[in-house]
């Protein structure tokens, strides 16, 4: 039992650190520009939303769920900020608060269906991804600005979210990400709430019997994930200086990949914030380094990331199941053939 609460899987995290170092070495030697700090800092803007969201989706996955609606919430947040600010004349910060609140509601709705109605998380959030991206389009039609134009011209104070550079080099987004990561780490690994999340993921019935309101815990993780998506939406809107309903694009695959690569078990009960954070940075650097150093077109990036994902999960499966291996001894030659 104690082992369960030990938190981050140290071995896996050191593997991820190794992966990061490897990326720096390989990319850095292929193109020294990769190692220039200001460049790396600028590049981080382009994958920071993956990092921010995936640390909270990790919590959802630890409870045994999954959240594939977050990328549509990013767009919804962005367009609500724009429409509330420009067309309803709200103060920009009030608009941001409204957008984050709406996102939390969306998360709560999906979370409610998962936790209290017992619908599979995958299905609910799939429905959610349709619904919230559809709502984003409808919100954009409330605006006097045509949906295709994007609402821009935000006040400087708002844009400062992404333009401020701490100590002249570190962009504000990275600070936001680090703060959120520390917050999430504390929440998951140092509080009772975090322990409950793990317990629910390991065995919901047992958790329920030990007096945990497992449904509330599950629902709350979806709210947290939605709010983190909203934060990413705010950061992206400030960074791009424009509010559009499709700003989230298709982050989903990258987010899930980051969680899994970070050591989160998709069946629940296992995962760590540090692991996901490291993995999301590793994916971000891969997305940045591949085109920069090896001239791989952005549209082919799905291949290396897909390969990385498959190699990691298969490798992990191989390492983690010696007993099963013995049982499947007969199948092994076949396995290797298919693997090569």
């Amino acid at each position, binding site marked *: 039992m104690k082992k369960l609460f030990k938190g981050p899987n140290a071995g896996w995290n050191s593997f991820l650190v190794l992966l990061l170092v490897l990326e720096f070495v390989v990319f850095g030697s292929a193109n020294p520009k990769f190692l220039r700090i200001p460049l790396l800092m600028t590049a981080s803007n382009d994958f920071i939303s993956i990092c921010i969201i995936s640390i909270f989706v990790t919590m959802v996955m630890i409870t045994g769920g999954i959240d594939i609606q977050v990328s549509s919430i990013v767009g919804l947040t962005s367009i609500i900020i724009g429409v509330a600010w420009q067309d309803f004349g709200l103060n920009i910060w009030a608009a941001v608060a409204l957008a984050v609140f709406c996102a939390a509601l969306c998360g709560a709705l999906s979370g409610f*269906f998962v936790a209290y*109605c017992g*619908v*599979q998380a*995958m299905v*609910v959030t799939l*429905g959610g991804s349709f619904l919230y991206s559809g709502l984003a389009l409808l919100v954009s039609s409330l605006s006097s600005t045509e949906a295709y134009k994007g609402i821009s011209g935000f006040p400087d104070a708002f844009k400062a979210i992404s333009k401020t550079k701490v100590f002249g080099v570190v962009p504000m987004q990275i600070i936001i990400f680090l703060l959120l990561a520390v917050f999430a780490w504390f929440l998951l690994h140092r509080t009772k709430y975090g322990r409950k999340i793990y317990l629910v993921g390991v065995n919901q019935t047992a958790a329920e019997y030990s007096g945990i309101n497992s449904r509330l815990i599950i629902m709350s993780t979806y709210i947290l994930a939605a709010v983190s998506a909203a934060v990413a939406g705010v950061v992206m809107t400030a960074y791009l200086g424009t509010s559009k309903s499709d700003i989230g694009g298709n982050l989903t695959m990258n987010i899930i*990949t980051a969680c899994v690569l970070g050591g989160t078990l*998709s069946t629940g009960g296992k995962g760590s914030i540090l692991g996901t954070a490291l993995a999301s940075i590793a994916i971000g650097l891969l997305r940045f380094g591949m085109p920069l150093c090896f001239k791989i077109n952005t549209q082919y990036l799905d291949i290396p990331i897909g390969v990385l994902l498959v190699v990691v999960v298969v490798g992990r*499966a191989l390492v983690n199941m010696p007993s099963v291996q013995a049982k499947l001894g007969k199948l092994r030659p076949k396995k290797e053939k298919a693997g090569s």
Partner: protein
Amino acid sequence: MSVIKKVLKAREVSSFCFLVALFLIVGVINPSFLKAENVTACFNTSVVYTLIAVGMAFAIFTGEIDVSVGSNLGFVAAVVGTMIQNGQNWFLAFGVGLVIGVIVGLINGWGVAVMKVPSLIFTLGTNGILRGLMYLTVGVQQVNQLPKSFKDISSMTLIGNFSIYYCCAVLLTIVIHILLTRTRKGRYFIAVGDNAGGADLVGIPATATKIWAYVICGVMAALGGIIFASRIGIVTSLSGNGYEMKAVAACVLGGISLSGGVGTVIGAAIGAVIMASISYLLVFMGFSSNYDNAITGVILMTIVVADALLQKRAAVKNRRARLAARTEKVTKEAAE
């Protein structure tokens, strides 16, 4: 009596009723919709979704999922389209397409069943790889010079206004349904999904069954890809993008439980019609296409939540009935 009850209880029947209700609602809003050719158009337009949803159903029956079907479909469409465009023999092209489907299925099945990697994760990976391969295949030149004779098959009709493709898809679905419910090996798929450990204990080869499920899923996606190429006539590197989620949604709408072991391929086929015809029906309802996603989401969520609540109630009711029966027995015994 019990047969009727059983039929009414079947999930695909309620899905079918939902579809009919949907048609009727649209008919009330716009009476001109209720014409045979409009209703058949809804079915015809769903042919690709039907095929991939039936394939997906196999993966879901066994308690797994396959999110690589979209890219699989696109990749096959690209390869088959390129071959036919270059004047290769059609049947050779079809064969190559189906072989690709089998190989993708084998790889997915190996990862999921043999390596025990969570299926969502593994197929997410293969999805990325296949999409990338597709960019490489289609590259700069998109496939857009398919011969007329190949494309014309898609507008041929067989029975009434039903297209030849849709008729074949329905026939295939029915054959699969019969094989699944009437043969011993067919029942393995549901058994494995229902209780993999238990299935293993009674001698059902869970691993092999899962691999088979993925192979069937891959082949259905490949078939979908071939028909996609014939129906659309143009294959770009984005073709098939996102279809995997629509196939999952179709299965869910058709009453297939994502936790495995529950549902029929007929349900999947009906779900595919619901999924595909929403954008068609919206035009008749006079809604802007802006509502498309929102309405799809609402329908999906409503159905799954209602379904889950009904199931919960049924479970509670069953438990009570069992309890009542038991107490009755006990009291009877006590009385004796």
